[in-house]
């Protein structure tokens, strides 16, 4: 079974530029998450999708961050304009959904490391 795929793995941009990250979850997984992990901290949930609907985006800085999950499969996370404090690893995760899976386990991708200069 293929895991969660993310791209790009690494991205370096100047502040005020824009960047987009892509995620392809495990086939059949209804729920998709984007997490932000700043160095030395645990992952912080940015947005959660159930199929193509947003379940929780309460911690997403909506003035600069946006995310979409078209057709309930792939997802993109965009930052525009980027700030220095956005430097972090952006992790995508998926799970079978609220009605399935084992003990709430999330399956994570390898992450996209963003450096904002």
């Amino acid at each position, binding site marked *: 079974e293929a895991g*969660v795929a993310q791209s790009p793995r690494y991205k370096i941009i100047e502040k005020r530029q824009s960047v987009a990250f892509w995620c392809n979850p495990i086939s059949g997984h209804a729920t998709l998450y984007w997490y932000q992990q700043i160095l030395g*901290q645990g992952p912080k949930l940015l947005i959660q999708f159930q199929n193509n609907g947003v379940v929780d985006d309460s911690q997403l800085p909506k003035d600069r961050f946006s995310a979409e999950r078209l057709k309930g499969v792939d997802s993109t996370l965009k930052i525009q304009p980027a700030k220095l404090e956005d430097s972090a690893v952006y992790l995508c995760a998926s799970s079978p959904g*609220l009605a399935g899976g084992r003990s709430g386990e999330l399956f994570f991708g*390898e992450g996209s490391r963003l450096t904002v200069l």
Partner: protein
Amino acid sequence: DQQVKQNSPSLSVQEGRISILNCDYTNSMFDYFLWYKKYPAEGPTFLISISSIKDKNEDGRFTVFLNKSAKHLSLHIVPSQPGDSAVYFCAASGDYNNDMRFGAGTRLTVKP
């Protein structure tokens, strides 16, 4: 708001000995508690979990203990192996896997 806390940023143990990683939480509404392991340049991978209706769950060398009254859980690894060296994240969820909150992680180093 740090609802899940791992107060020890690092832990070093000798191979063959027990590793004990600790985690505290503040939200009494959490129903599930999980431990994830993370190697460098990889995403976190699920290790073991426990439901709030239990106080212990064991899987091979890994055992998680939950003390609800103290809002505390711990992960025991016995015996520890060098391959266990990684960052361990404690996580908690209030509704199956909705809005899972993570601690800051503990870096475990197992010395040969």
